[in-house]
């Protein structure tokens, strides 16, 4: 038996159940996400993808089951829990940029978990950490000259990139993305997906809920939810039209046993 201890998964859900109807429901969901993994989460609208991500980032504490971040349950102490959550970055579908602030201030908002009040207040008075913010913008192919601009001056594509740059400024270990490519034109969707996948280095993992299965090809792993249940855990290569039809068809004939549940 091997003695070397394997590092804890960045995210682990154990039998997570969220009772309810429709899109808010999860049933006995268990999964693990390890460093370096790029995982796509598929499922039709209302399958529970957003609920799963809300459980994963701590927004929705599950009534039953457990969520573990790097092997530890959410701390009881608020401060410790904040430290844990600072390691999880979420890319929201509506981006949730702070419209009244500049690009620079928005990027710095990602550092608030680490900053004390003096620095947080100073950020509202003067530009801080220009170097690091410029680098984050370059990382997402944006011009650092945008730093002093108000967020409202950006185009749709620039806003998407800024949201990713803000995520990078947070320096999270676990990246969660809730349908970030929905409502984007096909070319931009492909560009941004490549950008996001590029961020997953050795110590990071990505869980991205995806509306379009055709974009799942570059992921390492594909999970799928159906009516709140995790019904698929496989590789992109194993996705086939029958499987997808069963996944997205509300009344399928396909035998669920044909699918493979478990790590690839």
């Amino acid at each position, binding site marked *: 038996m091997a003695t070397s201890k394997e590092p804890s998964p960045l995210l682990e859900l154990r039998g997570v159940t969220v009772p309810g109807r429709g899109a808010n429901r999860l049933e006995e969901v268990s999964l693990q996400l390890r460093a370096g993994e790029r995982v796509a989460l598929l499922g039709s609208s209302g399958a529970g993808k957003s609920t799963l991500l809300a459980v994963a980032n701590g927004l929705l504490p599950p009534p039953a089951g457990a969520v573990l971040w790097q092997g530890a349950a959410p701390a009881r102490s608020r401060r410790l829990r904040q430290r*844990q959550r600072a*390691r999880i*970055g979420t890319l929201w579908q509506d981006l949730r940029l702070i*419209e*009244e602030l*500049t690009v620079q*201030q928005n990027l710095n908002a990602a550092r608030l978990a680490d900053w004390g009040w003096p620095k947080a207040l100073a950020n509202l*008075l003067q530009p801080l950490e*220009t170097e690091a913010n410029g680098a984050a913008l370059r990382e997402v192919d944006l011009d650092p000259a945008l*730093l002093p601009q108000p967020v409202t001056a950006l185009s749709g594509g620039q806003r998407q990139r800024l949201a990713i740059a803000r995520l990078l400024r947070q320096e999270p270990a676990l990246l969660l993305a809730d349908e970030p490519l929905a409502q984007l034109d096909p070319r931009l969707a492909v560009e941004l997906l490549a950008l996001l996948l590029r961020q997953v280095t050795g110590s990071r993992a990505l869980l991205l809920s995806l509306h379009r299965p055709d974009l799942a090809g570059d992921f390492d792993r594909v999970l799928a939810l159906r009516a709140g249940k995790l019904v698929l855990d496989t590789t992109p290569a194993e996705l086939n039209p029958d499987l997808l039809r069963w996944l997205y068809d509300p009344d399928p004939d396909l035998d669920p046993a044909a699918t493979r549940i478990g790590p690839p």
Partner: protein
Amino acid sequence: MTTTAWSWRPAAPLLPLLPALALLPLLLVLPGLIHGGGWELVAQFAAAAITPSLDPLLLRTALAGLGITVGIALLGWALSLALGLVGGVLSSRIVWRTWLGVAWPASAIRRFLAVPRSIHELLWGLLLLQLLGLKPAVAVLAIAIPYAALVARVVSDLLDALPTAPLQALRSGGAPAGAALLTALGPALLPGAFSYGGYRLECALRSATLLGVFGLGGLGTELRLSLQSLQFHELWTGLWLLLAVMLSLEALLRALRHRWGMPSRFKLTTAGVGRSGRELLLALLGLLPVLVLVAMALEISPAQLLAWQPLPPLQANWPAVLALPWAALVATTLGLTLLAACLAVGVAPLLLLLVAPWPWGRLLLRAVWAMGRLWPPPLTALLLLFVLKPGVITAALALAFHNLGVLGRLLLEACEDTADQPGSGGAEVALSCSGCGPRLALLYGRFSGLARSYLAYGAYRADVILRETVVVGLVGAAGLGSLLLEALSSFAVDELIALIAVYALLTLLGEDLSDRVRQRLLSG
């Protein structure tokens, strides 16, 4: 390397907190204002809160007083709404333009309505008291006159801000002016107008209490007598009853606003269309018999308003009036307004940031702010006199506490709006999810979006405070208010006329300034 210039221009989340800087000089001068005695009285007052008098006779008196106060508020409010709607339509530019093709009559009526608006309900009450004698109708009219002018202004603003395309479409289709106006603007006006009307009812209850404090009947009179005779247990009996009515009314109006999809106070400028016009109409019809019963119970009849008392002969001494220290009076009044407004506007978000994340923080804030709204400023001023010397700062504290109650509650409600809409809490949730503490998440995620509309409302509130400076005149706060109350009680009619004119002019200028600030904030 990219370099960015230092700006030192505060970003949006800091703006609501900036007025709280007024606390710094205040904390420096406050120790000098504290006088020796009185702490024992304050302690007795606080202790009496948990042991109000339950004497049946007193309870009966307090309930009767409360009934009169609520009745006055309800009648004054209903009358002001009816008159205000008519006044609002008549002072709307779009109505005149559609009707006669010109807008100048709207501007003329607007200017005329600015006069009753600029005079505080307390002054109306005390003036009408001279004319009509002591009867509930005086308090009803005192509320109805300035409130009607305020409602008219808001209604005409709302009407003139509505999109004109539906109206033009109807007119080009041959619809007559009246029918086109009613169809195109009527339904769109209702949500904003009635939401504002609801807030006016809350204000009317506070005004009716205040008028009572100055002897115009109702619970306010009982409260003042109890305070002045240091009967704190009796005082708290009345206060708890009033608090119960005030909170019930606020909860009812909030529930109705939600049900009928009406905009909150901060969002009145962008009113949408409500959903349930029929229910609203039924509610208004149901209110009519209630109003008639209240009028009968208070023995109010239109005939009372025609029986005028003879006024004392006017003995004018204009040179003496001119010799008054006008510059100092105006400066003191403005200073009092500015200090009270800064404290009220700045301390509400500051306290929200500091206290809200505590386990019972929001409940505590609700309680403090309810007390602020409940407690009429002149009574707060009297209470403060137990420990502070009379003067501008004592008066400013009393005004600030009352307005803090109003602003704090609206701010807290705005912060508790659903997080699903863009800009209304999503950023706060996102920040919390990234490990940010609750205070910084509130500051960055909520205050950013609320800053402009909050400050715009604060500008309006400053305008209200300027009018209200008269009510704290009785603590010797100097300024126009004190002199006005003196002139009223000594029947110095010449001085009274001059003071009211200056007051009206000042409040009109203040209103204009606050309008400009608000427009700049909301459009910028």
